[in-house]
């Protein structure tokens, strides 16, 4: 079975029936998820036998000045497919997102990194310490307004 | 059996007793570097440099400082700028060679020397005078025309600027004349036969620089 990429629509269909109110919209190759629902969605994505996303490749955050995108790249080894889930956070101050630490332990260091460099806090993560920079560092350097 | 694998391992080390040593006795004996080696110096041919500062613009670190002024000879007739400053900050350079890649006129080359230890950070830049006076042993990095001639930078003969260009100096001169004469009189000796093909080897990574 060749390795394939799941489209956003396919993911959105599965999510819409299992986790109500979670899907914002589907885009060509990714699905946009309501930020507050991200942990529940993650649980479903991992446990659903048809989707079976056991492996979290990466958590990335992108700063769009008036909003922040958090991108989850996922892979299933058994089903041989990959998918992209995104969540959009609006505003710039006191951003937070439910942590997927309990679903994928691999999120541990990545979420800390996003907090340190982008300033997005993950609720439910046990250890929201700065990871790369020192305590007392002013600001989050990967934000576009950090010079 | 316990210890057998260790004996096997010791046999391996024993074999090395009779081997030729791998060590290079550095100050006396030097490793043969390869012609593309990007050393910690630069070779610059002023005659070919137009002061366009492509290298400075393309340097990822912005460490090349170029100051030019219009030369007294008529600039509207295609004459070049006069260079006053061409400083390369050695203390920040990472010798990636992107400046060489960006130079459209084959004026800047990587050098092949590496012995550049300094006592003071203040003197750690290559000035225009140093570039003018230093012996020219250009590396063939990103200059495939040198490679195709089998040139070796470590043969100790400095290369003249007429030998290192992508095209022969003749062609260059004719092109300049063409530019100068575009507004005026005849164009007699710019015959196409004398033009040499640009880029002589199949690899020819030069396309990026001019496009």
């Amino acid at each position, binding site marked *: 079975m060749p390795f394939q990429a799941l489209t956003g629509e396919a993911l959105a269909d599965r999510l819409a029936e299992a986790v109500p109110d979670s899907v914002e919209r589907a885009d060509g190759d990714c699905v946009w998820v309501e930020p507050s629902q991200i942990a529940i969605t993650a649980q479903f994505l991992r446990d659903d036998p048809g989707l079976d996303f056991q492996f979290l490749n990466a958590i990335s955050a992108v700063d769009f000045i008036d909003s922040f995108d958090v991108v989850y790249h996922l892979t299933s080894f058994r089903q041989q497919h990959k998918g992209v889930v995104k969540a959009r956070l609006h505003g710039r101050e006191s951003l937070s997102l439910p942590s997927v630490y309990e679903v994928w332990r691999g999120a541990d260091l990545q979420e800390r990194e996003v907090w340190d460099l982008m300033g997005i806090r993950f609720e439910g993560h046990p250890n929201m310490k*700065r990871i790369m920079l020192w305590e007392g560092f002013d600001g989050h350097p990967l934000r576009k307004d950090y010079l | 059996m316990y210890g057998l694998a260790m004996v096997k391992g010791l046999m391996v080390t024993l074999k090395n007793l009779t081997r030729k040593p791998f060590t290079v006795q550095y100050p006396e004996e030097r490793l043969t570097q390869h012609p593309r080696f990007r050393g910690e110096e630069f070779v610059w041919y002023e005659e070919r440099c137009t002061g366009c500062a492509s290298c400075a613009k393309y340097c990822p670190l912005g460490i090349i400082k170029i100051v030019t002024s219009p030369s007294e000879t008529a600039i509207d007739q295609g004459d070049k700028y006069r260079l006053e400053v061409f400083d390369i900050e050695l203390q920040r350079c990472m010798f990636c060679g992107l400046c060489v890649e960006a130079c459209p006129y084959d004026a800047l080359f990587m050098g092949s020397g590496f012995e550049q*230890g*300094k006592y003071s950070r203040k003197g750690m830049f290559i000035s225009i005078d140093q570039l003018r006076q230093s012996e020219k042993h250009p590396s063939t990095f990103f200059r495939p025309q040198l490679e195709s001639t089998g040139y070796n930078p470590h043969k100790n003969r400095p290369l003249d600027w007429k030998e290192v260009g992508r095209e022969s100096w003749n062609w260059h001169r004719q092109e300049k004349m063409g530019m100068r004469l575009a507004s005026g009189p005849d164009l007699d000796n710019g015959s196409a036969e004398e033009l040499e093909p640009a880029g002589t080897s199949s690899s020819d990574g030069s396309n990026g620089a001019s496009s």
Partner: protein
Amino acid sequence: MTGEQEFRGIESGPLFDRTWHIDRVEGAAVQGLKDTSVEPLSEPLIEVPDDLKGNLVVTSVDALVNWGRKSALWPVTFGLACCAFEMIATAMGRFDIARFGMEAFRASPRQADLMIIAGTVTWKMAPAIQRIHEQMAEPKWVISMGVCATSGGPYFGSYSVVPGVDHIIPVDVYVPGCPPRPDALLFGVMELHEKIKKYHNLRPGSRNVPGGTLAAENP
């Protein structure tokens, strides 16, 4: 608190929750160093005295002591980034730094007299470097290997990189390159040898300053 933890006598809570104060202290030290180290330190220069009064005995002793010092420089094992691999390659079979009497890379700064700053120095690492440098016994020397250590190099201007290790400790020899090849490092070491040869250990009035070199400002 689990029974296991209670039995072992561990305080409650995971370790990372109990180390906040350490992190804060460290962060304050880093931030303090970053705020104060804005100018490079003066370069340790060797002063050649105007009146070469040094008599024959003193100069011979100097020569002997300097020869001893230069022939057995022991570097501290201290690799930071890419340059560390070239430093290790220098110590390995092909370039064999043992030919210079330097194969004893010491894990403890107390036993070393040369520090090769091999790699990018970040502000978070700077207090550690400063401390290791202070722990080394006099006389001591520092080679800044590669342009990252010299000036920040490819990372110059980054929010977390020291713009030159000479902002925090004095440097004797700078070796440019990114990274310098092992031969280039050996050349830097030989330059340091030349520098060590010029020391006047017994000249009256000379004194050692931190950095293990003679004071340039000494009258």
